[in-house]
């Protein structure tokens, strides 16, 4: 071990580095860092150092607590959350969650807490009884007075917009899933191969037909209006990318992230086929976007991507009045948002919607 005096000098020369790495330092190094800060209370940066030290100590406590939970004797503490979170689609959904759960199970299979296991199984049976007795949905509705059960007021692109704005193409019938007839085969091997290949072939044909049907179901403007990943990912990326968001705009960007989540949550589709949208979530996204944009400083325009998202949400809700000003504004901008806005305007023009109403 290096002498304390030598480390003290080293800390003095590289205090920033040591403060950054504080939580990962060995105990004797932490003592030296703390000592150095205390000894230099007359330094101009003293307050700043203390602030960083306090911050590091908070993180240290947190990481110590979290790390200590890895001990197998504490499995039972982490198990309920890990187990429930892995069973819910609305959970953190990480690979590590599954890995941790697997590890806990493996340790328990090796005999750590067999009695406890029996007890857990009994408790899970009780939880299953509870879940079977009254559904969460029914319970929530009776408690809150909100209605979740009714079919959500979905916005179907072609039907609603078609009724309201134009006499567009009607619904195309989805090609029904036909079962291919079993070909007569004599040899056993061919029969086995056939059994494997046929369902795959039928599935590929059905999916292809559905994809074509889904594509034809939408007009070009409808296809362009569908919310894509890029439409809802920009805000989060903006927050994460250094320099993209200035300090005063962070709160507004946090709102944009929430709005993007609403918009993303409103999308409903299986394998990208026949996309439709929950109108209430789109309304909420639009409302929050209005609020966020109002909070922008005077003479500051919302980012191009926000304008495009707003325009698309408005279009999906059939609110062309709100859509067109947002598009026109975005179209004056440089970059991909401007290009996207101009393309949408061309499609709208071709669909005779630019003159609306």
């Amino acid at each position, binding site marked *: 071990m290096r002498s304390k005096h030598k480390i003290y000098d080293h800390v003095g020369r590289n205090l920033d580095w040591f403060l950054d790495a504080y939580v990962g330092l060995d105990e004797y190094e932490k003592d030296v860092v703390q000592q150095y800060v205390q000894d230099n209370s007359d330094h101009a940066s003293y307050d700043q150092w203390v602030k960083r030290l306090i911050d590091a100590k908070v993180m240290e406590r947190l990481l110590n607590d979290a790390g200590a939970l890895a001990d197998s004797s504490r499995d039972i503490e982490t198990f309920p959350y890990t187990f429930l979170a892995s069973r819910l689609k609305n959970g953190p959904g990480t690979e590590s969650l599954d890995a941790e759960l697997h590890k806990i199970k493996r340790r328990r299979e090796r005999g750590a807490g067999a009695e406890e296991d029996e007890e857990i199984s009994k408790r899970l049976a009780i939880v299953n009884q509870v879940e079977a007795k009254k559904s969460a949905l029914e*319970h929530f509705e009776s408690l809150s007075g909100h209605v979740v059960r009714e079919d959500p007021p979905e916005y179907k692109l072609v039907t609603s917009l078609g009724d309201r704005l134009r006499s567009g193409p009607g619904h195309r019938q989805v090609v029904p899933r036909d079962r291919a007839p079993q070909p007569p085969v004599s040899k056993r091997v061919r029969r086995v191969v056939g059994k494997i290949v046929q369902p795959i072939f039928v599935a590929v044909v059905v999916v292809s037909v559905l994809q074509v049907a889904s594509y034809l179901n939408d007009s070009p403007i409808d296809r362009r209006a569908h919310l894509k990943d890029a439409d809802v990912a920009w805000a989060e990326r903006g927050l994460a990318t250094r320099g993209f968001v200035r300090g005063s705009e962070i709160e507004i960007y946090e709102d944009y992230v929430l709005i993007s989540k609403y918009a993303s949550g409103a999308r409903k589709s299986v394998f990208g086929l026949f996309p439709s949208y929950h109108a209430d979530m789109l309304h909420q996204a639009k*409302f929050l976007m209005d609020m966020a944009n109002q909070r922008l400083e005077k003479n500051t325009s919302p980012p191009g991507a926000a304008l495009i998202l707003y325009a698309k949400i408005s279009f999906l809700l059939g609110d062309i009045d709100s859509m067109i000003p947002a598009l026109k504004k975005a179209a004056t901008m440089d970059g991909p948002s401007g290009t996207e806005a101009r393309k949408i305007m061309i499609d709208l023009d071709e669909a005779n919607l630019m003159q609306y109403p």
Partner: protein
Amino acid sequence: MSYHLDLHSLDELALGLPFGLDACADVNTAYSAHLRSPTTESAKLVDLWTYCFIRRYYLMKFIRENGFQSCELESVVEQTYRKVERGRKRLKQHNRYAQWVSVVCKNNFINFVTRRSHVITLDATAMISDSDGDLFELMPESEWVDPSVDAGMLYVALARAIEDLPQFLHHVARMRFVEQLSYEEIGRLTGHSLATVRAYIHKVCTRFRRDPGLREFKSWYE
């Protein structure tokens, strides 16, 4: 040992949320937005998250603790939900709504257990009278954390933070922060020099400080 659990109904309900059940920052933003400009949708969203969170909280407790009856879950969820409904009018820290709901759950659970055992201590009585909302303002934040429930979340937050690190830092981070090994031990096990290990740990610390999951928990410790 395989564990069977069917959470279909809660899962379906929670999928109506645009954010995760543990996304405290998003929940707090949604709650603040609802208070600024309340609408039917925003109220539904706040209530939906609140209900799902409370229900999951008690499911965890039912798995963790012994001796509960299936009929008790519904009533304890209902009781807590009503407390949150009443208490939030008095909540001053709108940007801590998610954490506050968690505290109400914790206190209500203590009340619930105390009442079940028919032994009401003086401390518990004090808690019962306070637990609607004021307690949040009075209680030191270090006591907000409920070790038996939040432990899992905290551990997953760390596991996730490690998962989000670049691949070459995974092992070193696990060794240092999960297995609590010294620099020398890590160096021996990985074959890296001490200087490299230190540099790696420095990188890990810098990234941990920015990690959103850990940052969310950090506010509980401050």
